[in-house]
Structure formats: structure tokens, C-alpha cells
């Protein structure tokens, strides 16, 4: 018996139109969660099977992509047999100083335009895959999938404030990895000394 036989308001055609169209998004999310293409395909398949089996619980008109991300994450966590770990909230002052410091370091190294380069793809992927999963998943939801903080909060099952702190920390870690990469491959230009007073945020 198929879903269409028992639940007229949510048909297989709806599943095809509403759920399967998000397969590329779920696949990207799965790839970044698992860090392995083969595992990602398995996770994507399992996500859609569970979504199909739970399709009658999906509320028509709600955000199907977000619903799929939530399922995907739950399957992943269950597979990993681990619990979502509490990540300490960053010290806002330290985070602010770190964000500013990273920019100044990059600017002083002639890397202010680093992110306009088009050849950073592999380095970004490597940097992202190197992040702890709590940070990685919030970047993919907000920065790649364009989720709001509130939507990411629902998908991850954490407060909005936690989404924000994880996201900011993740971005800084990723930026640091990219700046380090740029230095490693010799993109740094001669040090341009600045007045140290300029580096203090007021």
C-alpha cells in the first residue's frame, strides 16, 4: 500500500514535488556532516526513506527543506551513536577581539582581498571539513542553505543564541584556516606596518 492510498492530502506526487526537489541540498548537508561521499549518499538515501515513511506527519505549507535537514541530522547522530554535545558559548568580548584581530592580521599580510580569489574552493572545503561537526553543520545551514538563525535553531534543536555563537566561531575558524592556507602557498605580501593603536577596537 502506498501513501497515496491512505492519505489523500499528501500524495506521492506531493512527496516528489516537495521533498525530492531538495535532494541536492540534503546531499550537500549529508556530505558535510559525514565528510565522506559514500557515507553521505547512504545518509541521503536513509533521510528520504524516513521522510517518505513519515510523510503523513509533514505539515503542508511548512518548510520541507528544514524538515528534511532535521531528519538527516537525527539519522546522522543516531548512526554516530553520539549525543549532541553542549558547546560552550564563546566569550563575546574575546570573540569580538578575535574577529577584529583576524581581519587586521589578514590585511597586514596583504590578504584583505583573499576571499575574492576564485581558486579557494578546495581550501574552503578542507577547512570546513576540518571543523568540529557542531560548527560545520551551522555553516552549511546558514551560509550555504541560507537558513535564518531561527530556522537553523529548529533544525539543530538548539537555541538561537547557540546558533549565533557557533556560527561566528565557525566562521572565524574557517577564515583562520584560509588565511593560514594563503600564507602556506605564498600569497602573503610584505608586511605593512600599522600603528598598533589602530588595532584596538573602541
Amino acid at each position: 500500500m502506498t501513501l497515496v492510498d491512505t492519505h489523500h492530502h499528501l500524495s506521492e506526487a506531493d512527496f516528489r514535488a516537495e521533498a525530492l526537489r531538495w535532494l541536492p541540498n540534503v546531499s550537500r548537508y549529508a556530505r558535510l556532516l559525514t565528510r565522506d561521499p559514500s557515507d553521505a549518499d547512504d545518509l541521503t538515501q536513509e533521510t528520504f526513506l524516513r521522510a517518505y515513511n513519515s510523510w503523513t506527519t509533514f505539515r503542508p505549507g511548512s518548510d520541507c527543506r528544514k524538515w528534511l535537514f532535521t531528519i538527516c541530522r537525527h539519522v546522522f547522530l543516531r548512526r554516530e551513536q553520539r549525543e549532541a554535545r553542549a558547546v560552550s558559548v564563546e566569550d563575546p568580548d574575546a570573540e569580538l577581539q578575535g574577529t577584529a584581530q583576524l581581519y587586521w592580521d589578514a590585511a597586514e599580510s596583504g590578504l584583505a582581498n583573499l576571499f575574492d580569489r576564485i581558486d579557494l574552493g578546495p581550501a574552503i572545503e578542507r577547512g570546513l571539513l576540518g571543523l568540529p561537526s557542531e560548527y560545520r553543520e551551522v555553516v552549511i545551514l546558514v551560509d550555504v542553505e541560507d537558513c535564518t538563525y531561527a530556522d537553523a535553531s529548529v533544525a539543530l534543536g538548539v537555541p538561537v543564541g547557540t546558533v549565533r555563537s557557533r556560527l561566528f566561531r565557525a566562521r572565524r575558524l574557517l577564515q583562520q584556516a584560509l588565511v593560514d592556507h594563503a600564507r602556506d602557498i605564498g600569497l602573503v605580501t610584505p608586511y605593512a606596518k600599522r600603528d598598533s593603536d589602530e588595532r584596538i577596537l573602541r
Partner: protein
Amino acid sequence: MTAHKVDDIACAHVISSVWDYLDDEIDADRKHQIRRHLEACDHCRDQYTFEGAFLRSVSRILNDETDYAALRHRVETALIKHGFSRAR
């Protein structure tokens, strides 16, 4: 920093809000204040440009052009085994 305060908002507050601003996660008044500050403060604007380029770079790189046909076929095959109908 050349502009410590513009429109009653300090550089430190702008930098601490730059991600929220770029993500459009702040209210309209705050957004307006930050926009005015960025127009007047070279240092904050440079950092804002840097962070914005970073976000565009991440979004562009990870929104790849992978062909998902094979994966979609695999998923649909698995769904059919669970009662899903073939596409007409």
C-alpha cells in the same frame, strides 16, 4: 580607528554586529545605524567588505554544480522498494 563613533554607534559595536548585519538578523533601526556608520568609517567598511567577501566565497564554493541524477535514481529506487510509485 578614525571614526570611533558615528551616528551614536561605536566601531566596536559595529564589528560585533557585522555578522548579524550581513545575515540580515538585526532590526531595521540597528541596520540603519550600522549602514550609516559603514558609509562614514573606512576601517569598519574594510572589515565589512572582507567578511562579506568571505560569506559569498563560502556560499559560491559549496553551492556546487554536482550532477545529482545518479543519487536521485538511487534514492528513488530505494523508495520504490518501500512502496513509492515510479515516476510517470
